[in-house]
């Protein structure tokens, strides 16, 4: 059976200008308890890959360059 892709708004946004993942930083990826962040192979910066956000904010708080913003997922907002 084919698998459908249901779109949903990603709560975590990462400012590629500020992100220093390409310099070896993996802070947000390490600290996400849900493990939903990855390096985007297209630009070497971090991005959200899975819509499984607990909006707990370590990614935003621990980011050394303040590149991460988290919105409350729309269903709860």
């Amino acid at each position: 059976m084919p698998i459908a892709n249901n779109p949903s708004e990603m709560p975590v946004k990462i400012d590629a200008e500020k992100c220093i993942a390409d310099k070896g930083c993996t802070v947000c990826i390490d600290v996400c308890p849900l493990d939903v962040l990855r390096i985007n192979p297209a630009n070497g910066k971090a991005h959200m890959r899975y819509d499984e956000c607990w909006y707990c904010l370590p990614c935003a708080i621990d980011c050394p360059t303040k590149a991460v913003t988290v919105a409350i997922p729309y269903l709860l907002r």
Partner: protein
Amino acid sequence: MMKQSGFFDEPQVDFVDLERRLASFDAAERSVAAREVAETPGPEAERLLIHAIADSDAAVRREAALGLEQFDGLAPAEALAQALLDENAAVAEAAAASLAELKSPEAAPPLLALIKHPRAEVRIAVCRGLRNLRLEAAFQPGLEALGDADARVRREAVGILAYLKATKALPALVKAASDENVEVRRAAISALAFAPAEASLGSVLTCLSDPHWLVREAAVVLAGRVKAEGAIAGLINSLSDEFWQVRGKAALALGTLKAVAAIPALGNLIGFPISNLRKDVAAALGDIGHPDALPFLETAAGDIDPDVRKIARRSIQLVESTRS
């Protein structure tokens, strides 16, 4: 032996690699490395952070200052004291936070050296750091800092003296309780809790009519904590404070003091619109433990608020048990 490489976050850190990355031409790479060092225990990490705190890039210096929070003693204290003077506010802020984590007396000299620094933020951080050391050597400097022009410094200076709990600090704390700044007064009056009631009574009575409710609240709380018999009349007066928060704390203090004379005034508040206060009044009437309170408590036992009812029932029980 079992295959295991690659599975475990290696506890043996590659310091050679870290040091190499800390010397990178790319500032972002250096800050990433500094953060990694900051998560690493041991003297080697301490050395690298002390080195990195003098980096040309502010982000690296900040990471180093944050990371030094886990180390104690003279060397990190010196490095942090230097970073406290950093032109970059984020670095100085990080250094201030880490200075507050110091615990050993060896860390004191660089802090003491800065206690008269022209920048108030520096003096504040230094006082905060010294407070936690609970050091006799900080007494005199703390005393002098109480005369600082900046109220935020005076507020931290209260902490230095109050943490020492030394009798000889009492006159200074009493004086600080009538400081022109509300936060200083609030801190100072609360800090008198370690002293016997007689020592703080004058301050309590003055602060009971302080212009700011938070100071008045702190004063009534202190009167209860140190069981200041001499404050009873003042506390009864506080039962008609414009802030119900102060009235409630005054009621509880009168309960602790078992002030039978307060029963009529407390009884007057049993119909007050804010239930938090009714609850405190019901508790106080029970703590006083005198049968005169029973009619008021019977009323409170039928309150619309369940917390008031609960406390009233407990208080009725208390009164009845002291009676028998």
